[in-house]
């Protein structure tokens, strides 16, 4: 077992970090303050393959392995979690289901533009009465001669305000009048598709999270992803992949908060000595570092499982559960170490604190992750 990162992974980390520190960091605070999606930065990210991280090269992507993908999201989120969110959602639950379940024609039609960053992906499951309970989806799809008519409202859609290619969960009736779940690919210029107002959220403010409306929105049959009734399978597979991305995002936030705390603890003087000389602060830093390291190992194990073709659902849930919990705890302590300044917008840690919380909620709450993990444990043969 080799715990040392290979040269490729080191280079991926440095590459993303260099770009994020130079091109994103100077603007992050203002983007958060203005709740503005930085299209000008996205333009710079497009040729660097951020929008096709794991897309095969034949479709214009970088063709990275999952550990590289996790490292890229971690480093990006360390500087700007809202952009990290955009990139991970686009790559995982936006593109991956098309690569996994799409026809050749669908891959050729949708993936190159998505990998180039010209069409940002979104994944619409959550509704007013459905979220953790995917069975509660009310958006419906009625089949006509050549396609499907979609009606319904999706809420809290990450990338909603800038999306170009949308995967929509909708129920329809099978021949026996039973409800079945399906996934449709909807292009943003379809009649009947509307973007709602951008949500005013606690964190991730530079990501345009919004509601999406489908009002008699017709899509052709060739826009059905997978087969009729495969919606739950596609959704769960997509979320397994998405959870690796969110775990990486949470890890990046935690790492940023930790580094700020170490730096501040060395500089800030109280009682004529730096904070870092106080055992209480040392204990805080030790706990933060330990949790971050454990999070990183869980994350890379889940990514390695996916790369080796093994089942990784439980591993991805463990990584997501633990990394998001670490992010919440570490950012909380980071604010505490910074004292009054930590609560001020003058310092970045209050943003880390706000951004961290939602990692325990989206792409499956922590409670849902425990359900997934428990189901995996209990389904094992004796």
């Amino acid at each position, binding site marked *: 077992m080799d715990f040392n990162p290979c*040269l490729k992974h080191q280079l991926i980390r440095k590459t993303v970090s*260099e770009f994020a520190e130079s091109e994103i960091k100077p603007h992050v605070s203002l983007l958060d303050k203005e709740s503005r999606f930085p299209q000008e930065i996205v333009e710079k990210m497009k040729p*660097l393959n951020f929008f096709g*991280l794991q897309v095969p090269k034949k479709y214009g992507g970088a063709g990275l392995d999952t550990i590289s993908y996790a490292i890229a999201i971690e480093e990006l989120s360390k500087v700007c979690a809202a952009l990290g969110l955009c990139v991970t959602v686009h790559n995982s639950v936006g593109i991956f289901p098309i690569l996994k379940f799409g026809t050749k024609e669908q891959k050729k039609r949708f993936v190159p533009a998505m990998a180039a960053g010209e069409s940002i992906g979104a994944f619409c499951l959550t509704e007013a009465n459905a979220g953790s309970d995917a069975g509660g989806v009310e958006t419906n799809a009625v089949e006509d001669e050549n396609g499907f008519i979609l009606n319904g409202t999706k809420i809290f859609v990450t990338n909603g305000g800038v999306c170009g290619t949308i995967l929509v969960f909708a129920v329809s009736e099978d021949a026996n009048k039973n409800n079945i779940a399906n996934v449709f690919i909807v292009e943003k210029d379809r009649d009947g598709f509307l973007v709602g107002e951008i949500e005013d959220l606690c964190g991730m403010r530079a990501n345009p999270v919004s509601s999406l409306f489908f009002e008699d929105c017709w899509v052709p049959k060739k826009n059905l992803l997978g087969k009729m009734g495969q919606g739950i399978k596609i959704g769960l597979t997509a979320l397994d992949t998405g959870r690796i991305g969110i775990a990486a995002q949470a890890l990046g936030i935690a790492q940023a908060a930790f580094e700020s705390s170490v730096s501040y603890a060395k500089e800030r003087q109280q009682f004529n000595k730096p904070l870092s000389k106080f055992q209480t602060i040392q204990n805080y830093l030790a706990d933060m570092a330990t949790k971050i390291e454990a999070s990183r190992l869980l994350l890379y194990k889940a990514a390695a499982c996916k790369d080796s073709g093994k089942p990784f659902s439980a591993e991805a849930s463990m990584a997501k559960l633990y990394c998001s919990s670490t992010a919440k705890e570490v950012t909380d302590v980071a604010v505490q170490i910074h004292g009054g300044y930590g609560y001020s917008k003058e310092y970045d840690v209050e943003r880390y604190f706000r951004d961290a919380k939602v990692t325990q909620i989206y792409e499956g709450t922590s409670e849902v992750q425990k359900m997934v993990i428990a189901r995996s444990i209990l389904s094992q043969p004796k």
Partner: protein
Amino acid sequence: MLNIIVCIKQVPMVSELPWNSKTGTLKRELAQGMMDPASRRALEAALQIKEKQAAHICAITMGPALAEEILHQAKALGADEGVLLTDRQMAGADTFLTSHILAKCIQKECKTFDLILCGAQTSDSETAQVGPQLAEELKIPAIGYVNCVEVKENIIEVQRHVDDFFEILNMDLPGLITIDLSAYKPRYLALGGVETAFEKPDIKTVSAGELGFDKDFSALKDSPTRIIDVFSPTTQKENRVLKGAVKKVVDQLFDDYGKVISSAMGKDLKTHEHDEA
């Protein structure tokens, strides 16, 4: 096909370097390495030439085994091959021996080169000696501190900024140029490039023995120059806390430091008039 050699160097990432507060020196063993910024500009110049005409880029570096990383980075950016000169016998080489070893390597591994590009000076030692010395070793012409390169048949035309004017020079090939740190803003590395570079991860490794040095050769001992000491320059810093009512404190600040601040800003702080000079 233009055969280009780019000499690159791995240097410590100074922003992350831990300092030994007792000795005032860098703890290099704890430092992360990165491609020297001037080397990266030399590589960028080569990549821009390759975008305009058929060219083969060979990146060469000399250093510890870990320096392999920057050769992969060079390949990810668009270099065609990487050569790593690494051997304990070469450790501690000064600029004179570094140039000598690089020349021997080039004569052995890349005889048919047309153009050698180096960074003008590296960020860790800033001697600016290796490029010109390498040209002397290979008996080829050299031009330093170049801002712009254009290849024309068997000559190259370069431009450089000298004092307050630009100088345009022609040079026969083969030749060597060093690229100024202000020129050729390096491109960011695309993540797909990293993946491609590692699909064919071969880096040619060359030892001292393969270049004809005998087993008694030691670059550290045989270098004609020695570094006696490395230290961070001491600066005189004084912190003063001005206490009292704001108006009184500001007046005192102007009285004590007004001239210095005005001089640095180029305008009179009290009248807000700009200094015409």
